[in-house]
């Protein structure tokens, strides 16, 4: 039966993560962006909350064994996005490695890799999906895999891999058949020091600047057959993509909400021509549009997440939602800068930071998951 209310547990999670975002993440955001450094203590504190991976790790591996919910994941991602996108992406990166293994791994792979995520301290781990082409397309990955003797060989380039330099192993997506779309995509668990794998210098990005991202180059990189995630069964890459889109869209909703809240409060205070600028229709309508679009964006994300939780693949819903939110967050962040006028342009108020971050959502895939 149609219901727009979160469960009590979800509300509690939202409030807890939301408080952390406002009290801890937001005050650190500007300096993190300027210095390119995420405060490690924030990462540890978030890890301690248990919301990164531990709740989903099965009990036999030391986790809480909760069923994953994409809706709950979206709620968490939104609150973290409200705090700071770069810190959030860094903090959630281990999911990129752990969750696909949880979902699709063979018993051996789950046994081998999931235990360490029950650790009390942050375990850096990540996945490599994106490729450095303007028309990068997850249905046509250029990173290839082929059989080589008893093992496998990876070739290709990846970009925008979060915290790759800190991660012991990486989950790498490659295609065994670029004509097979998602069905040809597989995941490979690759140690950082695999022969033939080179990690680039840290990348320089327009936004997400506190997040360390790296390029990878695979030149006849040899891996064993046990590296294939899911063994012969492979993975459900379409589902993995839906989970990624929902997470990113949810984070964007959080950041859009942040920009809207900030602009609204500023407009109520800032005076011009004898009254707060919020009392002028031009400004008031911009704010009203932001409010509507934050809510509309959230509902689209929730609908896609709900479909995933029902076991559907949510391909169309998650794709439409992410593209919609990529646009809406861009417009909202841009409007936030506009409402602050000249002050919005200075790297002091957070709105210019949100504008630079907002542009990323259109291009980025696979750097977060629910």
């Amino acid at each position, binding site marked *: 039966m149609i219901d727009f209310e979160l469960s009590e547990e979800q509300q509690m999670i939202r409030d807890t993560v939301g408080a952390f975002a406002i009290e801890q993440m937001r005050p650190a955001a500007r300096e993190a962006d300027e210095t390119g450094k995420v405060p490690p203590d924030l990462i540890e504190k978030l890890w301690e909350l248990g919301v990164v991976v531990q709740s989903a790790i099965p009990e036999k591996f030391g986790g809480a064994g909760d069923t994953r919910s994409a809706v709950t994941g979206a709620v968490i991602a939104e609150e973290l996005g409200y705090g700071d996108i770069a810190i959030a992406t860094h903090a959630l990166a281990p999911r990129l490695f752990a969750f696909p293994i949880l979902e699709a791994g063979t018993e051996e792979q789950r046994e081998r890799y999931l235990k360490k995520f029950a650790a009390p301290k942050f375990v850096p781990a990540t996945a490599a999906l994106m490729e450095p082409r303007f028309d990068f397309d997850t*249905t046509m990955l250029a990173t290839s895999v082929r059989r080589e003797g008893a093992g496998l060989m990876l070739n290709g380039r990846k970009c925008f891999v979060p915290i790759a330099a800190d991660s012991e192993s990486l989950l790498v997506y490659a295609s065994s058949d670029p004509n097979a779309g998602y069905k040809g995509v597989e995941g490979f668990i690759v140690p950082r020091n695999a022969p033939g794998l080179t990690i680039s210098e840290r990348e320089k990005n327009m936004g997400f600047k506190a997040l360390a991202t790296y390029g990878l180059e695979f030149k006849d990189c040899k891996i064993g057959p046990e590296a294939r995630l899911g063994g012969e069964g492979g993975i459900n890459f379409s589902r993995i993509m839906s989970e990624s889109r929902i997470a990113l869209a949810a984070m964007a909703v959080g950041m859009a909400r942040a920009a809207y809240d900030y602009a609204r409060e500023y407009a109520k205070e800032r005076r011009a021509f004898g009254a707060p600028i919020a009392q002028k229709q031009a400004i008031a309508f911009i704010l*009203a549009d932001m409010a509507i679009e934050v809510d509309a964006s959230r*509902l689209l994300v929730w609908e896609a997440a709900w479909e995933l939780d029902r076991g559907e693949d949510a391909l169309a819903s998650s*794709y439409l939602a992410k593209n919609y939110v990529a646009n809406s967050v861009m417009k909202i962040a841009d409007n936030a800068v506009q409402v602050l006028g000249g002050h919005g342009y200075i790297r002091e108020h957070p709105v210019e930071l949100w504008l630079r971050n907002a542009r990323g959502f259109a291009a980025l895939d696979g750097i977060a998951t629910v």
Partner: protein
Amino acid sequence: MIDFEIEPSVVKRVKMFHMVADGVMRPISREYDEKEHEEPEQYFQTMWAANAMADSSLDLAKKKDGDGAKDGDGAKARSPMRNLYTVITTEELCWGDAGLFLATPNAGLGGAAVMAAGTPEQKERFLSRFRGGQPKWGAMAITEPGFGSDSSQVTTTATREGDDYLLNGTKIFCTGGDRAAKSEGFIVVWATVDKSAGRPGIKPFVVEHGTPGMTVVRTENKLGIRASDTAAIVFDNCRIPKDHLLGSPEVRKEGGFKDVMATFDATRPIVAAMAIGVGRAALDFVRDFLKQENIPVRYGISPRRLTALERDFMEMEVQLKAARLLTWRAAWMMDVGKHNNLEASMAKAKAGLAVTLITQKAVELLGPLGYSRELLLEKWMRDAKINDIFEGTQQINMLIVARRILGYSSKDLN
């Protein structure tokens, strides 16, 4: 728990409404769009009988089950989600034809006003007629030549004379007003008992069909929703009994105007649902057309590799989804007893905008075929536009949203 599933009993009803939309409305859509001022008599009879059947199956089900109708029968009565139910079924009927939907004989906005502001006795007196007899209509007349959005500017007067009121003034843009006047219906007229008092002086009055002094002087020629009659009505010393005033005659801040304005919180999601129905008609048509032409719509590929056609279609699709979700939320809030003034306005603003975009885009995408009156696509574009305007224009709804989010009164922000 977050849930977007329509319950099975409602799904069943929606299928029935879809049959009406597809089998009864669509076949006569073009005809009554072209013959704007003709009466779709057969349609009126069909819908009136269907409503009577639905009501009697409701009564029957109630009798069978004592304390409530069973699942499947009279789902409308049993479903605690009445507003959601109405929104979902309204979308289905307007997918059929929005003009015919508005032309359907029922108590309409006039009935809504009676429900919002009338005494129990008045509700019985004015509304029981809709349960039997010949098709009839209820209508509401607010707008005047001098105002639409600024409803505090009512100049139609209600002057007390003995045990009666005399109404004087002109009303325009009254949906269903002509048919209400020509059938055994009524029109609820907003008139002021004291112009100097502003809003608190404005009251709703029921004027019965055939009352001397009430004349429908014309029905408009419109861009769309042509099957719906839009009446201009002149009141010239129109005499009505004093007990035709809905609610209290006192000029006070509470009640009256505010009560009737509150009905808009309930009707706004329904009007949004109307828009969504029309938008979906266009979207479904384009989707079917693309399938027919073997033009794929590829979800999941890089957005930069989408064709212009795919990109436009997906934009239409997601805008409709967004508008629908906001509308469902507004209706759900009413059903669970939450105040939804902000959310109802969000839904109406978004729906009007989204559906204008969708229907205009649909005509554009189909090139010369979209432009032809051989297809219903151009009609839906014309029908959609009204949703941006009536029951609160997009701009008024944006204004309401802005006031709510800023905590401003109409004095602070206008």
